[in-house]
């Protein structure tokens, strides 16, 4: 791997205008594969979710999964696309060991959805990203190249192939070239993918997990010398596995291409690989001696002609767009743009909304999900949504705290117990006896003891130094095993000493 020189981003932008485009692959969350009845669950024993069809055994034939067509139409409609009234699948021919048939059933010049757009906001500015096409294809198997330095097929000692993924429905969403974004290009790329991910999640068509590969992004970048009006050669960067990487990959390609052009060189049309560790891209296979995929209409399948009333039915079930949902909730919850971003970035939007719906105040819902629960998720290496606690349970805990039945420390204990599978908050409280001590007789006795044991402190408080009451509160809390409401204890102490 040769290290190439880079031009600092700001300097690159002075001389060149970037043009970007994104190709996003999304594994659909259908129960079964694109052309057979094998289930699509992620993470199964290798080569257990396979059959003659997805293994491409001689004689086997594909049959289109209707649900995959429906999901693709959903995506197309949500992206404001035109839905084809008649289209075909095509074969994309190339040899690779993880492709069972050595051709991929895809769509070529007749995609299911065309010509749409997705509106995104970058730094408060609305940008309309044009969508060229949305088409449906089958995923390939997954290769594991063992031995060798790069983890790629060249230089590997041997390779293992898992065909569980082969035939999972894959939607490819291709943007039109995104022009005129200047220095914001890397951010536009990231925001677009983020918005697309949220939209796909809201549509319920995919679990859109970049880390599991159910959402994969290729980033096209080219540079035009400012004022030249001529577009440069583009590169396609793959292996971009997180939202942050999308932004970094664009930035790195701009810096690299600027260096090539500054040096009088020529950008080669090629596939490049992004490296998470270095933030750089390296050359993959060159597209100039590129494969000729010999596309032709898939003769094993009949054309897809979605009836207009079916498309209308699908349109009627589209959920509110995430950007609209966010604007609405931001107003309802009375939070700032930055606070909203924090909720969204934490993957907590739905959770907070559901917690509010279950009766919590927006402030409490945010506090628990972005604070305590975000910490737990982080420690456990889980997505917030994967924590074994429901919005209803969080709302109940918030309500118990608001009522004074729990203090924050006890609430954390309750959360621990719920996460450990001990049941609903009320069950946990009953089982563990975690309720706040609210018997004022018992509290008053503890307060008397505390005052007696700390006469100096009591004197200060009596003299009006209310802030000095801390050690007394602490003593009472210790005496009650932490099960008292600290705020109530403070109130009682102050009442006793200042009246």
């Amino acid at each position, binding site marked *: 791997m040769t290290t190439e020189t880079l031009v600092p981003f700001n300097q690159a932008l002075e001389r060149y205008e970037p043009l970007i485009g994104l190709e996003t692959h999304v594994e659909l969350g259908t129960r079964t594969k694109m052309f057979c009845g094998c289930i699509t669950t992620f993470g199964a024993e290798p080569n257990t979710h396979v059959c*003659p069809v997805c*293994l*491409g*055994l*001689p*004689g*086997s*034939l*594909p*049959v*289109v999964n209707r649900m995959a067509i429906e999901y693709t139409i959903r995506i197309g409609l949500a992206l404001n696309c035109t839905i084809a009234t008649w289209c075909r699948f095509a*074969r994309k*021919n190339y*040899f690779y*060991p993880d492709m*069972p*048939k*050595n*051709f991929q059933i895809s769509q070529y010049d007749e995609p299911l959805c065309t010509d749409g757009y997705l509106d995104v906001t970058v730094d408060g500015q609305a940008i309309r990203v044009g969508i060229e096409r949305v088409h449906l294809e089958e995923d390939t198997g997954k290769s594991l190249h063992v031995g060798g330095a790069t983890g790629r*097929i*060249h230089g590997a000692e041997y*390779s293992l*192939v898992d065909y569980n993924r082969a035939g999972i429905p894959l939607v490819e969403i291709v943007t039109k070239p995104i022009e005129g974004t200047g220095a914001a290009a890397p951010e536009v790329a990231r925001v677009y993918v983020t918005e697309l991910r949220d939209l796909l999640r809201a549509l319920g068509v995919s679990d859109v997990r970049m880390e599991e590969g159910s959402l994969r992004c290729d980033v096209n970048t080219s540079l035009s010398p400012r004022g030249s009006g001529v577009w440069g050669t583009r590169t396609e960067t793959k292996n971009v596995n997180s939202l942050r990487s999308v932004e970094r990959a664009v930035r790195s390609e701009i810096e690299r291409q600027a260096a090539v052009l500054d040096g009088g060189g020529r950008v080669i049309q090629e596939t490049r690989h992004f490296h998470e560790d270095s933030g750089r891209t390296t050359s993959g296979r060159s597209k100039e001696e590129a494969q*000729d995929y*010999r*596309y*032709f209409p898939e*003769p*094993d*399948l*009949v054309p897809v002609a979605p009836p207009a009333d079916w498309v209308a039915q699908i349109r009627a079930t589209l959920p509110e767009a995430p950007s609209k949902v966010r604007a609405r909730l931001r107003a309802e919850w009375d939070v700032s743009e930055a606070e909203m971003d924090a909720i969204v970035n934490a993957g907590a939007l739905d959770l907070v909304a559901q917690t509010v719906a279950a009766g919590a105040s927006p402030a409490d819902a945010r506090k628990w999900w972005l604070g305590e629960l975000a910490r737990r998720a982080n420690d456990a290496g889980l997505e917030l949504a994967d924590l074994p606690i429901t919005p209803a349970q969080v709302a109940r805990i918030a309500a118990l705290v608001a009522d004074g039945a729990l203090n924050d420390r006890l609430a954390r204990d309750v959360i621990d117990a719920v996460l450990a599978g001990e049941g609903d908050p009320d069950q946990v409280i009953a089982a563990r006896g975690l309720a706040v001590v609210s018997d004022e007789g018992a509290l008053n006795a503890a307060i008397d003891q505390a005052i007696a044991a700390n006469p100096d402190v009591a004197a200060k408080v009596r003299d009006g130094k209310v802030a000095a009451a801390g050690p007394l509160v602490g003593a009472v809390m210790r005496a009650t095993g932490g099960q008292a409401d600290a705020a109530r204890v403070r109130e009682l102490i102050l009442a006793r000493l200042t009246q």
Partner: protein
Amino acid sequence: MDLTRMTAAELSAALSKGEVSATEVTRAHLDRIAAVDDRVHAFLHVAEDKALAQAKEIDAERRQGTIRSPLAGVPVAVKDVFTTTGMPTTCGSRILEGWHPPYDATVTQRLKQAGAIILGKTNMDEFAMGSSTENSAYGPSRNPWNLDKIPGGSSGGSAAAVAAYEAPLAIGSDTGGSIRQPAAVCGIVGTKPTYGGSSRYGVIAFASSLDTPGPFGRTVLDTALLHEAISGHDPCDSTSIDAPVPPVVAAAREADVSGMRIGVVTELSGDGYQSGVLSRFAEAVEVLESLGAKVTEVSCPHFRYALPAYYLIAPSECSSNLARFDAMRYGLRTGDDGTRDAEEVMALTREAGFGAEVKRRIILGTYALSSGYYDAYYGKAQQVRTLIIRDFDAAFGQVDVLVSPSTPTTAFGIGERADDPIAMYLADLATIPSDLAGNAAISVPCGLAPEDGLPVGLQVMAPVLADDRLYRVAAAAEAAFTGRWGHPLLDEARGL
């Protein structure tokens, strides 16, 4: 009573009367195979144990009063292009030598459900590419009329097995004539059903938009019985037609052409057709006319482009369909000695595993689909295909069926055309139009060419899903001819 000389319909009747058992019938055919197949080489695999076990099961069922279908207990030979569990499936290729499919083709499944006894797998041109079985990696089959002649192809093994009384029925597949041409040159009956009328699931693909499974028999009625047994909608094949199976058996029994309008295709005669073929064909037309059919001449001007269009479309599809034979998952693997990468092993395997004709067509198709050539070749061929469909549509606006000779010549000699692909391709001149258009067609014997004493086939073509008309015409012709000859044509075969 020689059980192997009986028709499927006769065997079916004898079985239901309890005059014979399925085991006896199966045993008789296995014995016949043992006696003659070293000379005919119709079979690549004889499933003796499985066939006898199946027969035993059918006999047991019959004793308990269960009769699965008219074909229960009747033996059938299956072309090696169909997947079969418990038997190898090679498609006539080295690249699949020893492959045991884990699933049954829909046709295989339906035969088993009908209780037909699968005797084994028949020889074929490698991947169904050829007209003589000489392209089989396992050596050619021979014509029971004359062992020095080809039995046709690509389903030559199936046709030879039926003509040699090794099986009363056989299954083939027709892509460019691969059922009708062997049927014609072996003096038996063979049908290419309407495309989509019989399922392709489990048929190892040559050209997906053309491949059509179909039946062989020694009589029109037998062929209809098998046709009916394997037909009908299959959800596993997207191109399968969801419509009732045309009443082919009833039509074969009626055998009535009075009042039918029959068109003789102008373009399917003349240059390139052997004189004895043309004279027998003319005689057949007269016979149909004498039976009350109204005969006219019909022109299908684009049929002359059918052969070149076919040799772009079929190789294009095959170049893609055969890409999966790459040594990675099944079949032959060559050169995997630890020093070569996957790509080299793929190349070496395909080099060693495919025969010359298969390679020729893969290269032809790869070229025809290439960027920059697609429109001129594959695209243009598809346009020709549309024009041929229109020719058929126009013709079927005027007549009920079309007729022609099934093949331009009678069986040629083994080795005679082996080095001349174009001469070989011409064997399918008359059969290809119906493959491109997807309509139904049959070949039925109409006599022997005087010059060589070899059988000639009459081809009848019917519109999509009007397969029953084929049987109506073919059965009427068969009855008239047999009456005239005084015996079935096959009685004159002297090769064995």
